């Protein structure tokens, strides 16, 4: 009876790991693509490690946070179902 919640828990873990991977890839790809500074672009300007000024486009997290959020909600649902379906000790066994 608890196979479905356990499968949900495993799916939640996989979705969260996938979301973290997608988010890490998105951040790495974003940081690897600096733009030349411009006084008319309206973009924030940062100083890189070598002292040069660089600009970055608006950061869009993509689907990574959505996957992490979905995984956390699924994890909560599976944990709640596991807690409800858990049959450990009965009151008469005290």
């Amino acid at each position, binding site marked *: 009876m608890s196979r479905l919640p356990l499968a949900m828990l495993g799916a939640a873990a996989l979705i969260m790991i996938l979301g973290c991977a997608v988010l890490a890839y998105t951040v790495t790809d974003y*940081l690897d693509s600096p733009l030349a500074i411009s006084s008319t672009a309206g973009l924030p300007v940062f100083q890189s490690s070598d002292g040069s000024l660089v600009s970055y486009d608006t950061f869009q997290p993509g689907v990574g946070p959505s996957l*992490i*959020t979905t995984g956390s*909600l699924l994890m909560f649902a599976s*944990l*709640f179902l596991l807690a409800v379906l858990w049959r450990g000790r009965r009151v008469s066994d005290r």
Partner: protein
Amino acid sequence: MSDERDFDPRFDPAFQRGYVAGNGTAPTQNPAGQGSEPTPQWTNPPQALDARARPDAPAMDAPASPAAPAAHPTPEPAVTLDGNPWVRVLWVIAPVFIIGGVVGQTWSQSRFMGGVTSSASDVLTSYVTPTIAQSICPWMILTGLAALVGVVFLHAVRWRRAE
């Protein structure tokens, strides 16, 4: 005058088809009682008849005991939450998600409101990470609150009065 009709011995003949009151009708199970009063076996009160009509009623041929307890269905023993590992996990993730979400949301807002400083790591810590936190932390708070409500609901449902 004898009557060959069969009456169901479990019930009072007065409530069965073919019974005529006062003409000496007697059931076949009591041939010696012709012309006599019906035996007390059939003069049961309506409560006893109703009790016998129920399928879950106890057997009526059992000796009646005034101290016998009433027939109540035995309740299913409740399952306690003591030792439930999943409830412990819910108790852990609920405050972690709530506090982590609130702290992350507050931190991201303070980073955005503080302005952009000039250092090499600020791209990540002052812009990228707060953006990610602002997209995840509200859902963390909601999930933590749902976990808190769920685990409190479980405790309320499984609560038993201390004996």
